């Protein structure tokens, strides 16, 4: 049992931390990177593209990609350290994140030479932004039941259908898209994985604005969209295997949000904020509430590290991984809810106030936190997965 970095890992951490300290300017920083995965506006996007290019020039983009494709061939533990430091520094999620984390590694494994040449360097360099065309109105948790149809026209497909919850589609140049090419086959067979240029005629992107006003997601409509056959990843009708590869990279993502920092901020607020005459921090229920959150945040952190250890040791995944999403998203909600208990009426104010300079941030979090336990598989689905796959309980 050892929670400390090995010397070479400590050295890697120092190197990346000092690079971030020297290069990450305040105007780029975000309170919680997970809350603004997609830039809120074009100006912020341009700033973040410039930031990605700066990181790329220094060799810090896609570090776990093999060297021959422009990465560093970083080990898993280095990727973990990278993510920890990146979140810690309050750096923004890169505009190319979904391609760097999901599509790129998929193409490296399963793409054609042409596809690799066409896209990989552009992804790292910040020249191409991608969106993930997986979920549909009728295919979320049960992704394989997707119905967006692609008809084989010899040297190309013609795509018709609709995707939903497409993050950042409004800024995307390309889309990695799952379509149904054989409606007769069982649902996991007959899916094909396509690379689609978002400038192709027939694509309409419609914003799906969240209840807190954030423009992050979109609906994407495809109407007779022509996609050349050289843009198929893997084999026709065998796209599910490719999709699983992509999803594996998604689950492998090691970064965790910095709950401890949020809680520390709430403790500060509780000390300063004279809720109900005495400082909140002098009230037992507030102390108990915030201590409990800090305990849960630490539990989540160590549970994550235990899962990573299994992976580093090359052992089969344990139960830890499957509880991260469930517990982490619900903890994030509890932290948001605690801010309401603490701030009273200030919890509803969407901007800065004299008494609570960051009231707007907490108001937004209270609203936005609802999505954590929905996106990427609802908590109910997660409990089914734990019950069935980890504990071996029968399906309903």
């Amino acid at each position, binding site marked *: *049992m*050892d*929670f*400390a*970095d*090995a010397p070479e*890992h400590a050295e890697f951490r120092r190197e990346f931390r000092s690079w971030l300290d020297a290069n990450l300017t305040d105007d780029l920083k975000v309170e919680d990177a997970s809350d603004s995965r997609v830039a809120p506006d074009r100006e912020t996007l341009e700033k973040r593209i410039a930031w990605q290019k700066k990181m790329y020039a220094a060799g810090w983009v896609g570090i776990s990609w093999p060297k021959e494709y422009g990465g560093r061939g970083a080990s898993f*533990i280095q990727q973990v350290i990278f993510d920890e430091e990146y979140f810690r520094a309050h750096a923004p999620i890169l505009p190319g994140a979904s391609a760097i984390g999901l599509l790129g590694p998929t193409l490296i494994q399963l793409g054609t030479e042409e596809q690799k040449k066409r896209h990989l360097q552009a992804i790292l360099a910040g020249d191409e932004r991608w969106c993930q065309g997986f979920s549909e109105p009728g295919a979320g948790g049960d992704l394989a039941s997707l119905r967006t149809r692609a008809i084989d026209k010899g040297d190309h497909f013609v795509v018709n259908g609709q995707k939903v919850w497409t993050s950042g589609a409004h800024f995307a140049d390309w889309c990695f898209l799952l379509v149904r090419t054989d409606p007769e086959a069982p649902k996991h067979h007959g899916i094909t994985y396509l690379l689609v240029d978002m400038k192709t005629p027939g694509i309409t992107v419609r914003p799906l604005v969240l209840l807190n006003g954030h423009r992050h997601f979109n609906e994407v409509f495809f109407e007779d969209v022509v996609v050349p056959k050289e843009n198929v990843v893997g084999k026709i009708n065998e796209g599910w295997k490719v999709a699983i590869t992509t999803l594996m990279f998604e689950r492998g993502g090691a970064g965790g949000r910095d709950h401890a920092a949020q*809680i*520390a901020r709430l*403790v500060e607020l509780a*000390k300063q904020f004279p809720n109900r005459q005495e400082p909140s*921090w002098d009230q*037992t229920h507030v*102390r*108990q509430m*915030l*201590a*409990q959150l*800090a*305990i*849960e945040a*630490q*539990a*989540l952190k*160590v*549970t994550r*590290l*235990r899962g*990573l*250890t*299994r992976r*580093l*040791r090359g052992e089969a995944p344990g*139960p*830890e991984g499957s*509880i991260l999403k*469930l*517990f982490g998203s619900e903890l994030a909600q509890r932290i948001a809810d605690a801010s309401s208990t603490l701030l009273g009426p200030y919890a509803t104010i969407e901007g800065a106030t004299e008494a609570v300079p960051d009231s707007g941030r907490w108001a937004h979090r209270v609203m936005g936190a609802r999505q954590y336990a929905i996106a990427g598989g609802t908590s*109910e689905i*997660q*409990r*089914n997965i*734990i*019950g*069935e796959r*980890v*504990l*071996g*309980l*029968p*399906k*309903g």
Partner: protein
Amino acid sequence: MDIGFSEEQELLRDTARKFLDSACTTKFVRERMATQEGMTPEFWSQIAEQGWLGINFSEDDGGSGLGLTDLVVLMEEMGRAVMPGPYLATALLGGAAIREAGSAAQRQEYLPRIAAGELRATLASTEPNARWDASGITMNAQSMRGGFTLSGSKLFVPDAHLADTIVVAARTRDGSTMEDGVSLFLVPKDAAGLGVALMPSIDETRKLCEVRFDNVAVPQTALLGELHEGWPSLARVYDGAAVALSAEICGGAQRVLEMTVEYAKLRETFGKPIGSYQGVKHKCADMLVEVENAKSLTYYAAWAVDEKQPDAKLAVSMAKAYASDASRKVSNAGIQLHGGIGMTWEHDLHLYMKRAKASEVAFGDATWHRERVASLLGA
């Protein structure tokens, strides 16, 4: 970074599990808890031979020189088996107090015999005020010619009726702080004026006693460690016990989860196993989350104490706070999901439920440890 157990520790776990599976069945537990002794002399010698009693004593003191992370492995397995008897009292309370506070001579006198299974001990510190901080120690030890006189009452003392030696915490002066002025004494079971009575506690596998001191006179040599300076040692014993109990809770809760999942696969209602209903399935998933998180915090706390990390105290309280809640939640959910059969004496669940309750409130319950977390976070 490597947050897992070593090969030696996995071996220790395997050996302990095999031994307890055969020597400490629930039939054995039920038989022993019905007796005052709580275990058999054979069983006690067997755990001594395996080095369990001296696991955290140095090799010079007749122990194995292992740390809390090793103990955690053992405690998880003991919790899984609801192992009865005065292990906690002897090795982790009385023994640990002598290890933490004792002079070399005192350690030499007691610890090798404890490790060998020849001497049993306990720690009498908690009082009717049921506090776990230094202000809870109010019992008086009056200095008098050649020694001290102890008067007062201690409650919730684990297995004092089986102890040959009782380590007693008492106040020897009103210091500038609550921590100042606490002293520790070694009192033999046959000291004149000492009275031990069993309290009717729900967990019969680990019995609790009231220990009364009616002008018990002890010699100067009975002082364990330095006069007035016993609290820091006692605090370390409390923290060690909190981590050990957290680990024991994890082991017991893990077993309750397994029993419940097993039952949910077999038991059918309306033509389907109850585990296929989400109302049951989701509760099982939540139990797993509780168990795994409790393990995580316990492992971290053990490591932080062993490695003398600056956040060790915080880690201990985080572990015990979480484990105490998990102890209650998981054992309650286990009974709920078993339905009526889980409420019966014949089913083993109540053994786990009662131990879970006893461990939940011992050495600081969740509320107490959360307050300590808050103080440390806000400092």
